[in-house]
């Protein structure tokens, strides 16, 4: 069970810090707030936003990481989305993609549906689940000092790495990225591969 520590981090500021020096990373975001967070930092052709497919963000990142072993792939998703696809942690751990980083914006809530509590509110520890699956590098972040340590891990430690960032459930303005699936897919592939 996760220890009870005060949660103070603002998710928008966290994602902004993570993406500030993003270099050439390929970013996959889970549906709901993580997609809005990434859009609020700024739209980017290397972003692939999930608007649905709950439980699929980490696995989308896995397929991409396996296809592009020389590129760093970062998945930012929520605690509810991660819990729905939590078996994916085992699938990722078995594949051992050295270029895949997973970062959870864990507000312990289902944010898009009325802020109902998720299991992480009740002590379910996602970093411990990643550890149990076999991740060698995992952590839970509660403050800016820990975040400053975690960001280089997301970018350059041998993957797969897992960072669960505890963020407040304070409401944020909705910032919507493009939502047309074929457009997002074609834009991403064209930028990465030079063809759609």
């Amino acid at each position, binding site marked *: 069970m996760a220890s009870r520590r005060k949660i103070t981090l603002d998710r928008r500021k966290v994602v902004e810090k993570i993406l500030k020096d993003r270099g050439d990373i*390929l970013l*996959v975001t889970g549906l709901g707030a993580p997609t809005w967070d990434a859009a609020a930092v700024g739209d980017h052709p290397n972003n692939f936003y999930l608007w649905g497919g709950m439980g699929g963000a980490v696995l989308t990142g896995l397929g991409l990481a396996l*296809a592009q072993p020389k590129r760093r792939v970062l998945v930012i998703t929520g605690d509810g989305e991660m819990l729905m696809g939590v078996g994916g942690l085992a*699938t990722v751990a078995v594949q051992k993609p050295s270029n895949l980083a997973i970062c959870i914006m864990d507000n312990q809530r289902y944010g898009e549906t009325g802020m109902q509590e998720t299991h992480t509110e009740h002590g379910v520890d996602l970093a411990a689940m990643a550890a149990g699956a076999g991740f060698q590098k995992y952590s839970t972040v509660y403050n800016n000092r820990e975040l400053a340590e975690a960001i280089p891990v997301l970018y350059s430690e041998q993957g797969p790495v897992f960072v669960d960032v505890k963020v407040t459930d304070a409401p944020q303005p909705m910032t919507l990225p493009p939502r047309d699936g074929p457009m997002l897919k074609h834009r991403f592939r064209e930028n990465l591969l030079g063809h759609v």
Partner: protein
Amino acid sequence: MATKKKKKTDWSKEVFKVLKKADIRQIAYVPDAGHTSLIKMAVADNAIKPVSLTSEQEGIAVLSGAWLGGEAGALLMQSSGVGNVINMLGMANECRFPLLMLVTMRGEWGEFNPWQVPMGQATETVLDAAGVIIHRADDPAEIAETVEAAAKIAFDSGRMVAVLIGQRVVGFKDWTK
């Protein structure tokens, strides 16, 4: 039985050739007895990344990500797994991700396990409702060409396609072993 076993291996070999020709680089799967040979061949092939899944829905997302990264893939599963993928198919459908699924059927031809029957009988209906193009193969001799046609429509036309391999192909006697 010896003849039957040989036949089983043969269609798998032909299908694997078709998958190689389609430049499949990721094979995601939840095992089924009918896919045993294909999975072995995928694991043994250095150009293919075999991705063992905890649930079939993971495979839809994995192959979407693979396509984003420039690789084609295929998803192998049993008909019971079709029930697990329905919501995730929305992602492939909405984004027009190519999706090639090879589904070995249960619950339809001499099934001994009654709990396999409901999903087996519902498989075609739910795939159809989810917008998946369905190709059926009940004769071992036609499986490879069916997979080839399915791969073309998946990757050339950007569609979700399922090849349903009839339980009759593998032979119901195998299931009781």
